[in-house]
Structures are given as structure tokens and as C-alpha cells.
């Protein structure tokens, strides 16, 4: 259906922590410049799958995958692929806001600097913070510690920090789970404004959020009799929520699940 716009494609993806298989046989095509939500009950491997997309899983000793994740025609897990480069191209926003304990300015500028940004850092910081809808709130306090911001502002700063190096994809791991409803709304608005230029993949345990904010939804569930998760259904969001094909999806989105 959206074949030509696929930016990340997984093929027979299995993810392991040591001997434990956390995610089984995922086949997924993430459409470019869209928001894709991954939903499912806790412990079904949503975050694990997300973190496989920019090889963050590797930071956990013993984790490994088999299968392929294709990004721009290249398997991300090929031998000659540099995980550092992968993460440069596929950014990430974490569950809890984790700004660096430095100034707001430095939070945005640091990554650009280490990647050898040639232009004016001041301009980059300004334009990035504008994209993240944070500029008006922080333009007078750029030199202040990022830790002085509220939780919601910190999280938007983390989005801005990811935007600054102009990735193609931004992975968001339950970005609003630590925030209050108003801050959550702002993050969702921000996602909408970003999808023109970026592909966003978001993990959420909040079904309303997935329904409101995403274009596509992947439903994950533990496969029967194991503790390993897999994607049981992937479709446009409104189809998932209105007429799911899988009975388990229906149970889950209507709240009849466990």
C-alpha cells in the first residue's frame, strides 16, 4: 500500500537478550514522513523493537538480533555499518526527559558541533528551537541550565536536541509517559508539525495517544505461550482502531484485554 515510501523495513527480525528471545519475527515497513505508533501491553517488546531501529539495543550486553533492518537500501546490522552513523541518522527521544546538565544552548549545539557542523551555531540553535516550538519560552534563558526547565519543556528540548543534527527518522520511546496532560498535548502537537520533514516512530502504552497522534499503528502482543512479543497487526491507525482484523487487537483497543 505504501511500498514506495518505506524508510525502514524489518525482515524476519528476532531480538534477543542473551538466550531470551524478546521479539519474534517482526515484518514491518515504516512509511517515510509519517507518524507510526507501536502499541501493545507492557512487556511485549515495544521499546526493544524501537531501540533496534538505531542499534541502541547493543548498549545492553548480550543483546543481539537476527534478520534484517533495511534503512535506505542497507541492512543496519551489516558488518560494515557504523552504529554511530546509524544513530546520527536515526535520532531518539527517551521515556524520561534526559537533557544534559548543561545550558539550554549547549544541549542543542553539542551534537551539531561534534558532527562537524559548519554553519552558524547560533542560527542552528534558534531555528531548531523554533521547530521544536520552544524558542519563545527559552530565548532569553539560553545560557541557563537545561535542568531548570519544567519536565515538559525538558522533553521538547530533547526533541530539539535530536532535530539539531537533522536526522531522517526520530524514534520516540513513550516520550510523554512522564509528563502531565498539558505537556503531553504539546508534544503531540509538536509531532504533527514535524511529520512534514521527519519520519516519526513512537512507542506508547496510551491508546488514545496513538489514536490521536499517529498515521499508522503497529499492534504488538506476546505470542501465545511464550514471553516473546511480535507485531500481530500493522495498518493505518483508523483501521486499527475502528475495524481491526485481528481479534486480539480488537480486545486490546476496546479495553477488554487482560
Amino acid at each position: 500500500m505504501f511500498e514506495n515510501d518505506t524508510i525502514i523495513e524489518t525482515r524476519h527480525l528476532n531480538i534477543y537478550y542473551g538466550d531470551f528471545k524478546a521479539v519474534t519475527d517482526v515484518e514491518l515497513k515504516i512509511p517515510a514522513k509519517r507518524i507510526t505508533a507501536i502499541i501493545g501491553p507492557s512487556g511485549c517488546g515495544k521499546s526493544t523493537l524501537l531501540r533496534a531501529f538505531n542499534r541502541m539495543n547493543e548498549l545492553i550486553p548480550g543483546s543481539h538480533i537476527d534478520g534484517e533492518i533495511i534503512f535506505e537500501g542497507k541492512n543496519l546490522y551489516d558488518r560494515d555499518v557504523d552504529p554511530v552513523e546509524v544513530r546520527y541518522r536515526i535520532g531518539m527521544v527517551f521515556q524520561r526527559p534526559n537533557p544534559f546538565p548543561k545550558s539550554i544552548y549547549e544541549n542543542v549545539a553539542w551534537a551539531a558541533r561534534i558532527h562537524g557542523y559548519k554553519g552558524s551555531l547560533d542560527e542552528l540553535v534558534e531555528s531548531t528551537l523554533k521547530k521544536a516550538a520552544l524558542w519563545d519560552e527559552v530565548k532569553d534563558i539560553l545560557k541557563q541550565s537545561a535542568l531548570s526547565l519544567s519536565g515538559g519543556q525538558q522533553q521538547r528540548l530533547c526533541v530539539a536536541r535530536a532535530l539539531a543534527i537533522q536526522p531522517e527518522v526520530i524514534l520516540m520511546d513513550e516520550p510523554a509517559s512522564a509528563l502531565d496532560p498539558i505537556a503531553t498535548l504539546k508534544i503531540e502537537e509538536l509531532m504533527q508539525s514535524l511529520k512534514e520533514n521527519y519520519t516519526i516512530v513512537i512507542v506508547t502504552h496510551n491508546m488514545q495517544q496513538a489514536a490521536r497522534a499517529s498515521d499508522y499503528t503497529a499492534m504488538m502482543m506476546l505470542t501465545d505461550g511464550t514471553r516473546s512479543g511480535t507485531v500481530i497487526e500493522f495498518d493505518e491507525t483508523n483501521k486499527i482502531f475502528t475495524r481491526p482484523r485481528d481479534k486480539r487487537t480488537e480486545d486490546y483497543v476496546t479495553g477488554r484485554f487482560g
Partner: protein
Amino acid sequence: MFEQTVSTENNNGFPKKIDGLKKKRRWSEFIIQMSLFLAGFFSIFTTLGIVYTLGKEALLFFKRPEVDLIEFLTGTQWQPHIAEFGILPLASATLLTTAIAMLIAIPLGLTVAIFLSEYATLKMRNTLKPILELLAGIPTIVYGYFALTFVTPILRDIFGKDVVNIYNTSSAGLVMGILILPLIASVSEDALTAVPRSLREAAYGLGATKNEVVFKVVLPAALSGISAAVILGISRAIGETMIVAVAAGAGPNLTLNPFKGAETMTGHIVRISSGDLSYDSIDYDSIFAIGLVLFLSTLILNIISQWIVRRFREVYE
């Protein structure tokens, strides 16, 4: 189409990302990692250096015609000028001072640990712990001075000047006990606080008093951790040098009388090496042989202590 997604707008100001996924040669990263590894590995060289130098020079010592390994281990005289090299007088002085030190340090250190972990209020802890740290931070030479100029005169006043020599092992041992007290206290306290709260609560729930909880539940549970602390303290006492060098006396002396002077292994090394030591002399070689005994005995004690601590941790984690 993939080439298209790497659009030029993404490269604004950034070095090209076109073949970006390819592994880069990051030489500086590699060099830094190698240097850090070398820094980490450096300590291995220290250990090898210790083992090699002690072993090599000690071997030279034992190869000398006037020395014999059996005699070294069993001889009751250490008199280099008449070619008698029995380590027993030195070892017995070390054991004597250590025993006296532990007589002080174990009960006091344990009591302090129990008090800190079970009875003291937060405020008391916050005043007492820095004092203990201060006690532990005082250089040992200062303790040596304290032993010689304060404790020895008091001992001589109490027991009589003809009973207690100016240099004696008891004064050195007592002060060493004070030195080791903070070590035993802090390691035992760690062991006590590691006993899970649930265990205490279970006992309280059965109507036990605080004392009963401490003595019948917490202490037995922390026993292995406490024994690790004691072993560590013994190892520290064996290696302690300046207190005995100043207060315990010069000259090997095979005696168990704590009021007489006797030279410990460490004290002997210090006395021999503070003179002009020529490299080819038997004295020079002998300090390596004594050093080897010292190194091995403290190492074994430390390893045992670590082993106990590790096993203890596994129980509650």
C-alpha cells in the same frame, strides 16, 4: 529512491551523509581507547613488578651460602652479623603486636559498627562518621609518635618502669588497635546495613526487643561480613610499619612479653633500609625475602576477606 531521501537539505552545514552508514576510521577514537586500556592494564605491571622484584631478590637471598630456607622458616634467631636468619623472632613480634591491636580493634570496632548501624540517630551518625574518617586519615607516623610519647609513659607509670621497657610491643599494639578501629567499624557497618530490613521486621513482628533483634537476628546474619572485616584488619595490622618502627623497638627479640621491645618484620625492613644500604649486601637481599613473606601473608588474607564479602553479597542479592 533511497538516494532521494538523502536530500540535500539534510546536509545543510553538515559534512555529507551520502555514504554515511559506512564504518568510519576513527583513529583518534582508537588511540584514545588503546591509551585507556594501557592505563587500566598498568596496575597489572605494578603487581608483576612486585612479584618479580620480591621473587628475584628473595631468590638471591636464599641462594646465599649462609642462608637456608628451612632455617629461615624455623630459626629462632635473626642475627645477620653471625649469619643467623630465622624469621621467627620478627614474625612473632608481628603476630604479638597484631594480636594486641586486634584485642582493641575487634571489640571496639564492632561495637561502634553496631551502634552506628542499629542504634545511632541520623544526627549521631553524621557526627561520628567524620570523626572515624578523621581517625583513619591521620598518618601512621603520628600514631607512632602518640604511642611513644603518650601511651608508653602511661604504661610505665601503671606497671612500673622496670617492668615496661621504653620500647615495647604493647604500646605499639594498643595504638595500632586504635588505628585499625575505623577500618573494622566501617567494613562491619557495611555488613550490618546489608542485612535486609525484612529480616529485622520479621523479628520485630514476633515481639522481639531491639537488643534481641540485633544480637539474635542481625549479628548472626552479618557474621561473615564481620569476619571479613576482622581479616582485613589483621592484614592491615601485619603490614603496619611506622607505629612499630617508632614504638616497638629495634632488634629482633623472640619474646611474648608485651612489655619488652621486639622488632617486627616491617620494623626490621625500615631499620635496615634507613641506613646506607649497598645493593650487593645480604641485608639488601634480606628485606626482599621478608617483604615476600609480608606480601604473601597480607595478600592471602585480603583474598580470603574479599571472597567472604562476595559470598555474603550473593546471599542477599
